């Protein structure tokens, strides 16, 4: 892009012209998608906050939530973010073995998080909290489940990337943006989890 060194008046461009590469376009596109996704989560969180008091005949957050499960899940996701960072570093120096060493654990940790969520949801359903019983149940499962779907998609994405590099048996500089894209998505899912952990679980326990 040309530096905006002058306004719209007549004149030749100053500064350097840098044509955006596809990789740069992809990265900006990912950021815009994430920003948009943020607005989606904001809507669901507002829905949850507006309806979570409606426990009706079903159990409420205070009696239901077991923070020990949730905080463990949080640490699992936190670790996966760190390994993702290491994997990205490896990808940027085209370190094929490093990518495998760090991204396989990331996917496994993500899967573990999803597994814990499935366990947690089953536990709640057995205690009488369902989608239909109250709007606390409906909004809780919708919000947290939607995040869980995001994590699952992230795991699928990382796995597909691993398959991709595994078939090539190497990592090229040209693939760096692929790792950046998936890492941005993964961190974003983690950021959303921080909000959900605080707003849904911690505050739900405080009441």
């Amino acid at each position, binding site marked *: *892009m040309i*530096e*905006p060194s002058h306004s719209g008046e007549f004149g030749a461009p100053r*500064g*350097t012209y*840098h044509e*955006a*590469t596809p*990789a*740069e376009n992809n*990265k*900006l596109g990912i*950021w*815009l998608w*994430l*920003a*948009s996704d*943020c*607005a989606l989560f*904001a*809507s669901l*969180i*507002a829905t949850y*906050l*507006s309806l979570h008091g409606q426990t009706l005949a079903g159990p409420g957050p205070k009696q239901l939530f077991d*923070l020990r499960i949730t*905080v463990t899940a*949080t*640490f699992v996701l*936190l*670790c996966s*973010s*760190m390994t993702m*960072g*290491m994997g990205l*570093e490896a990808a*940027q*120096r*085209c*370190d094929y073995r490093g990518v495998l060493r760090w991204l396989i654990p990331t996917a496994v940790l993500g899967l573990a998080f999803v597994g814990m969520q499935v366990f947690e949801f089953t536990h709640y359903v057995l205690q009488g909290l369902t989608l239909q019983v109250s709007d606390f149940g409906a909004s809780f499962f919708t919000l947290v489940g939607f995040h869980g779907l995001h994590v699952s998609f992230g795991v699928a994405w990382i796995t597909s990337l691993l398959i991709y590099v595994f078939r090539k048996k190497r990592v090229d*500089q040209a693939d*760096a*943006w692929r790792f*950046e894209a998936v*890492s*941005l998505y993964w*961190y*974003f899912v*983690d*950021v959303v989890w*921080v*909000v959900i*952990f*605080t*707003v849904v679980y*911690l*505050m739900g*326990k*405080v*009441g």
Partner: protein
Amino acid sequence: MGHMEPAHTPPGPAPATPSAGEASAGRTHVTVAILLACLTIVAFGIVWLRAIPTGDMLPVLLVLALAQIVLQTLYYMRLRVDNRKFAIFFGGGVTLAVVISVFAHLLLLAR
């Protein structure tokens, strides 16, 4: 609009051995991860132990969450060093979304 700096710029063929810069980048990841873990433990701890009065808990928890978000977006998602366009679109959009959602929530509660 600013000049687009490619974010990943070790130009030329990839160096075979990790250099000092990469080691420090790896250290940043670990440091941030430790900070995030500490913040999570603190947030969990004050709720678990009821360490502070319930009335003060919400703002404290929100501040702790905000600190984690800032750490993650600035260091993990590299908004601190990356192209400012990303920060403008993402930061602006998120702020807008949060403000509108909070307002809508208040309107729904107000009745």
